[in-house]
Protein backbone atom coordinates (compact mmCIF):
# COMPACT_ATOMS: atom_id res chain seq x y z
CA UNK A 1 0.00 0.00 0.00
CA UNK A 2 1.32 3.41 -0.92
CA UNK A 3 1.17 6.06 1.79
CA UNK A 4 1.67 9.71 0.83
CA UNK A 5 2.32 12.75 3.01
CA UNK A 6 1.77 16.41 2.20
CA UNK A 7 2.76 19.81 3.62
CA UNK A 8 3.95 19.73 7.24
CA UNK A 9 3.05 16.05 7.65
CA UNK A 10 5.55 15.36 4.86
CA UNK A 11 8.07 17.78 6.36
CA UNK A 12 7.88 16.16 9.79
CA UNK A 13 8.14 12.62 8.50
CA UNK A 14 10.86 13.63 6.06
CA UNK A 15 9.58 11.86 2.95
CA UNK A 16 6.76 12.37 0.49
CA UNK A 17 5.66 8.75 0.23
CA UNK A 18 6.51 5.17 1.05
CA UNK A 19 5.31 1.61 0.48
CA UNK A 20 3.99 -0.06 3.59
CA UNK A 21 3.09 -3.66 4.33
CA UNK A 22 0.19 -3.50 6.72
CA UNK A 23 0.29 -5.83 9.72
CA UNK A 24 -2.89 -7.67 10.63
CA UNK A 25 -5.35 -5.77 12.80
CA UNK A 26 -4.93 -2.38 11.09
CA UNK A 27 -8.41 -1.83 9.66
CA UNK A 28 -9.13 1.91 9.68
CA UNK A 29 -7.44 5.21 8.89
CA UNK A 30 -7.26 5.90 12.63
CA UNK A 31 -5.60 2.50 13.23
CA UNK A 32 -3.04 3.31 10.54
CA UNK A 33 -2.23 6.71 12.08
CA UNK A 34 -1.75 5.09 15.50
CA UNK A 35 0.46 2.38 14.01
CA UNK A 36 2.54 4.89 12.03
CA UNK A 37 3.07 6.99 15.20
CA UNK A 38 4.91 4.03 16.72
CA UNK A 39 7.45 3.88 13.88
CA UNK A 40 9.74 6.60 15.21
CA UNK A 41 10.05 10.11 16.55
CA UNK A 42 9.38 11.75 13.19
CA UNK A 43 6.11 9.84 12.84
CA UNK A 44 5.12 10.50 16.44
CA UNK A 45 5.71 14.21 15.81
CA UNK A 46 3.69 14.21 12.55
CA UNK A 47 0.73 12.45 14.13
CA UNK A 48 0.97 13.97 17.61
CA UNK A 49 -2.45 15.57 17.15
CA UNK A 50 -4.33 13.15 14.90
CA UNK A 51 -7.50 15.23 15.04
CA UNK A 52 -6.03 17.89 12.76
CA UNK A 53 -4.77 15.39 10.19
CA UNK A 54 -6.90 14.88 7.08
CA UNK A 55 -6.85 11.65 5.12
CA UNK A 56 -7.78 10.50 1.64
CA UNK A 57 -8.15 6.96 0.32
CA UNK A 58 -7.48 6.63 -3.38
CA UNK A 59 -7.75 10.41 -3.70
CA UNK A 60 -11.10 10.84 -2.02
CA UNK A 61 -11.53 12.43 1.41
CA UNK A 62 -12.38 9.97 4.18
CA UNK A 63 -13.04 10.10 7.91
CA UNK A 64 -10.75 8.47 10.47
CA UNK A 65 -13.10 5.52 10.89
CA UNK A 66 -12.99 4.67 7.17
CA UNK A 67 -11.82 1.13 6.39
CA UNK A 68 -8.52 0.84 4.55
CA UNK A 69 -8.66 -2.79 3.40
CA UNK A 70 -8.13 -2.88 -0.37
CA UNK A 71 -6.93 0.74 -0.64
CA UNK A 72 -4.12 1.36 -3.11
CA UNK A 73 -3.11 4.83 -1.87
CA UNK A 74 -3.66 6.53 1.44
CA UNK A 75 -2.67 10.16 1.97
CA UNK A 76 -2.25 12.20 5.15
CA UNK A 77 -2.13 15.98 5.19
CA UNK A 78 -2.99 19.04 7.24
CA UNK A 79 -6.19 20.98 6.54
CA UNK A 80 -6.01 22.43 3.04
CA UNK A 81 -5.24 26.13 2.82
CA UNK A 82 -6.48 26.61 -0.75
CA UNK A 83 -4.41 28.36 -3.36
Amino acid at each position, binding site marked *: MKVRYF*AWVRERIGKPEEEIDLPAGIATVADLMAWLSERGEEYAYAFENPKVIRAAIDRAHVRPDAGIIGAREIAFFPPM*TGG
Partner: protein
Amino acid sequence: MATVRLQREPFDAASEAAQLRRGRGDIGAIVTFTGICRQDEAGAPLVAMTLEHYPDMAEAEIARHVETAEHRWPLLGVTVIHRYGRILPGEDIVLVVTAAAHRQDAFAAAEFLMDYLKTRAPFWK
Protein backbone atom coordinates in the same frame (compact mmCIF):
# COMPACT_ATOMS: atom_id res chain seq x y z
CA MET B 1 -17.03 23.04 -22.22
CA ALA B 2 -14.97 22.67 -19.06
CA THR B 3 -11.21 22.86 -18.79
CA VAL B 4 -9.28 22.16 -15.59
CA ARG B 5 -5.52 22.47 -15.57
CA LEU B 6 -2.88 22.37 -12.86
CA GLN B 7 0.47 23.66 -14.00
CA ARG B 8 3.75 25.05 -12.79
CA GLU B 9 3.96 27.65 -15.58
CA PRO B 10 2.21 31.02 -15.73
CA PHE B 11 -1.04 31.21 -17.72
CA ASP B 12 -2.47 33.78 -20.09
CA ALA B 13 -5.90 34.83 -18.81
CA ALA B 14 -6.78 36.71 -21.98
CA SER B 15 -6.14 33.81 -24.30
CA GLU B 16 -8.08 31.44 -22.05
CA ALA B 17 -11.07 33.78 -22.10
CA ALA B 18 -10.76 34.23 -25.86
CA GLN B 19 -10.76 30.48 -26.35
CA LEU B 20 -13.93 30.07 -24.31
CA ARG B 21 -15.96 32.45 -26.45
CA ARG B 22 -14.47 31.68 -29.88
CA GLY B 23 -17.12 31.16 -32.55
CA ARG B 24 -20.07 31.40 -30.16
CA GLY B 25 -22.98 33.81 -30.35
CA ASP B 26 -24.86 32.72 -27.24
CA ILE B 27 -22.43 34.06 -24.64
CA GLY B 28 -23.50 37.38 -23.15
CA ALA B 29 -21.25 37.50 -20.11
CA ILE B 30 -17.72 36.42 -19.27
CA VAL B 31 -16.28 36.72 -15.79
CA THR B 32 -12.55 36.30 -15.42
CA PHE B 33 -11.08 36.03 -11.95
CA THR B 34 -7.33 36.21 -11.51
CA GLY B 35 -5.81 35.49 -8.10
CA ILE B 36 -2.43 37.11 -7.63
CA CYS B 37 0.35 36.47 -5.13
CA ARG B 38 0.58 39.58 -2.98
CA GLN B 39 3.80 41.08 -1.61
CA ASP B 40 2.47 40.64 1.91
CA GLU B 41 0.49 37.44 1.41
CA ALA B 42 1.12 36.29 4.98
CA GLY B 43 0.98 39.74 6.58
CA ALA B 44 4.75 40.05 6.35
CA PRO B 45 6.84 40.78 3.23
CA LEU B 46 6.94 37.73 1.01
CA VAL B 47 9.89 36.63 -1.10
CA ALA B 48 8.13 33.74 -2.74
CA MET B 49 5.29 31.34 -2.02
CA THR B 50 5.57 27.63 -2.60
CA LEU B 51 2.26 26.00 -3.27
CA GLU B 52 2.12 22.26 -2.70
CA HIS B 53 -0.72 20.15 -4.04
CA TYR B 54 -1.94 16.55 -4.26
CA PRO B 55 -1.78 16.24 -8.02
CA ASP B 56 -4.45 13.79 -9.11
CA MET B 57 -6.73 14.50 -6.20
CA ALA B 58 -6.67 18.25 -6.83
CA GLU B 59 -7.64 17.83 -10.47
CA ALA B 60 -10.44 15.39 -9.67
CA GLU B 61 -11.80 17.56 -6.85
CA ILE B 62 -11.72 20.74 -8.90
CA ALA B 63 -13.42 18.95 -11.81
CA ARG B 64 -16.11 17.77 -9.42
CA HIS B 65 -16.75 21.32 -8.24
CA VAL B 66 -16.86 22.54 -11.85
CA GLU B 67 -19.55 19.91 -12.52
CA THR B 68 -21.49 21.11 -9.51
CA ALA B 69 -21.31 24.67 -10.84
CA GLU B 70 -22.48 23.50 -14.26
CA HIS B 71 -25.49 21.85 -12.70
CA ARG B 72 -26.32 24.81 -10.54
CA TRP B 73 -26.02 27.57 -13.16
CA PRO B 74 -26.62 27.51 -16.93
CA LEU B 75 -23.00 27.96 -17.96
CA LEU B 76 -21.69 28.05 -21.50
CA GLY B 77 -18.08 27.43 -20.55
CA VAL B 78 -15.74 27.14 -17.56
CA THR B 79 -11.97 27.23 -17.36
CA VAL B 80 -10.00 26.72 -14.15
CA ILE B 81 -6.21 26.90 -14.08
CA HIS B 82 -4.29 26.62 -10.84
CA ARG B 83 -0.55 26.94 -10.55
CA TYR B 84 1.63 25.09 -8.08
CA GLY B 85 5.27 25.25 -7.10
CA ARG B 86 7.19 28.44 -6.52
CA ILE B 87 5.22 31.63 -7.18
CA LEU B 88 6.66 35.12 -6.84
CA PRO B 89 4.81 38.22 -5.58
CA GLY B 90 2.92 39.82 -8.44
CA GLU B 91 2.55 36.53 -10.29
CA ASP B 92 -0.78 34.90 -11.00
CA ILE B 93 -1.82 31.92 -8.86
CA VAL B 94 -5.26 30.94 -10.11
CA LEU B 95 -7.60 31.69 -12.99
CA VAL B 96 -11.34 31.06 -13.21
CA VAL B 97 -13.24 32.01 -16.35
CA THR B 98 -16.99 31.48 -16.56
CA ALA B 99 -19.21 32.17 -19.57
CA ALA B 100 -23.00 32.39 -19.58
CA ALA B 101 -25.85 34.09 -21.39
CA HIS B 102 -26.47 36.33 -18.39
CA ARG B 103 -24.15 38.07 -15.99
CA GLN B 104 -25.65 36.75 -12.73
CA ASP B 105 -24.89 33.14 -13.64
CA ALA B 106 -21.33 33.90 -14.71
CA PHE B 107 -20.67 35.87 -11.50
CA ALA B 108 -22.27 33.30 -9.19
CA ALA B 109 -20.36 30.37 -10.69
CA ALA B 110 -17.02 32.21 -10.61
CA GLU B 111 -17.52 33.13 -6.95
CA PHE B 112 -18.58 29.59 -6.05
CA LEU B 113 -15.48 28.11 -7.68
CA MET B 114 -13.14 30.68 -6.17
CA ASP B 115 -14.57 30.14 -2.69
CA TYR B 116 -13.82 26.45 -3.07
CA LEU B 117 -10.36 26.97 -4.55
CA LYS B 118 -9.26 29.47 -1.90
CA THR B 119 -10.47 27.48 1.10
CA ARG B 120 -10.88 23.76 0.50
CA ALA B 121 -8.95 22.69 -2.60
CA PRO B 122 -6.05 20.27 -1.93
CA PHE B 123 -3.34 22.91 -1.87
CA TRP B 124 -1.02 23.90 0.93
CA LYS B 125 0.87 27.17 1.20
